[in-house]
């Protein structure tokens, strides 16, 4: 049964991860690359695939608070995008985008394993998962690991001002755990005491509040950041819907075999 769980989860995770990666590369990556132009002049985060001279550019490049000079923020987005695509290092980047596809598959395989573990846990407690529940499980997973954290910490563009990484990672993990637990209690709770506890768990991370920097001094245009956040969440929802449908379908078949 362990093998059936692993294969169901990994096949569904790989499929969802691949779809997520393709959607990201098409819809999200252009916004991210565009933002990197603002992040600090010529600096890119991806040292391995970059042709830029990091030694010379490091001093200015690491100053995230420096205003992006030479870009007119009031210019139409289309004009800036065209300018961005013409800049050196922008375009399809095989090593960089290949790694993105690989890591997207790893991330969604991890989500798939947690999802199938949740299927099995619900079945150990008397529920029977059906293939038609896939969308519901997928949307719940999306809310737990992407929507709920994004409510406090919106998906960040490179260069955005942010609080300490450890504080944000801790808040992210606590939010995911509390949200997943809260959604579980909403779905499987049977009385108002449990549902009240679920509401507290869902609300708590946002009542406490995510860590934010004292000043918002990033060089990234808010238009790009808003587009990035919306697209990242949209791609996440699509990928999680696929993950939920594939995982329930594969799991119910493997279970019956």
């Amino acid at each position, binding site marked *: *049964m*362990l093998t*059936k*769980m*692993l294969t169901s*989860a990994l096949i569904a995770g790989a499929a969802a991860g691949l779809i*997520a*990666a393709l959607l*990201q590369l098409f819809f*999200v*990556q252009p916004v*991210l690359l565009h933002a990197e132009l603002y992040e600090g002049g010529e600096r890119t*985060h*991806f*040292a*391995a695939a970059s042709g830029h001279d990091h030694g010379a550019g490091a001093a200015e490049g690491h100053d995230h608070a420096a205003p992006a000079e030479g870009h007119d923020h009031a210019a139409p987005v289309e004009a800036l995008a065209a300018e961005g695509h013409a800049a050196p290092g922008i375009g399809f980047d095989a090593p*960089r*985008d290949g*790694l*993105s596809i*690989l*890591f*997207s598959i*790893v*991330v969604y*395989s*991890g*989500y*798939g*394993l*947690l999802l*199938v*573990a949740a299927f*099995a*846990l619900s*079945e*150990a407690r008397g529920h*029977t998962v059906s293939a038609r529940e896939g969308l519901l499980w997928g949307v719940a997973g999306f809310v737990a690991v*992407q929507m709920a954290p*994004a409510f406090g*910490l*919106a*998906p*960040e*563009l*490179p260069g955005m001002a*942010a609080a300490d*990484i450890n504080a*944000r*990672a801790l*808040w*992210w*993990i606590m939010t995911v755990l509390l949200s997943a637990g809260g959604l579980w209690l909403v779905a499987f709770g049977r009385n108002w005491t449990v549902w009240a506890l679920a509401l507290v768990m869902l609300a708590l991370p946002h009542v406490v509040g995510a860590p934010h920097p004292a000043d918002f001094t990033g060089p990234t245009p808010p238009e790009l950041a808003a587009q*990035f956040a919306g697209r*990242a*969440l949209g*791609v*996440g929802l699509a990928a999680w819907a696929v993950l939920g449908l594939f995982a329930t379908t594969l799991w119910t078949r493997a*279970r*019956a075999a």
Partner: protein
Amino acid sequence: MTTATRAAGTASVSYGNIAIVALIGAILIFTAGLAQSEALHDAAHDVRHATGFPCH
């Protein structure tokens, strides 16, 4: 592996196996999404941003 019996067509999975699968999943997510090693950060950079993980 398990002592529980389920209705026809429903699998029975031990809590141990559930924990193993969940642990592997958590390790994958931590490695790709949250681990702060320089190499992992660079390789997973775009996915971390696009998937909403806190990143640098």
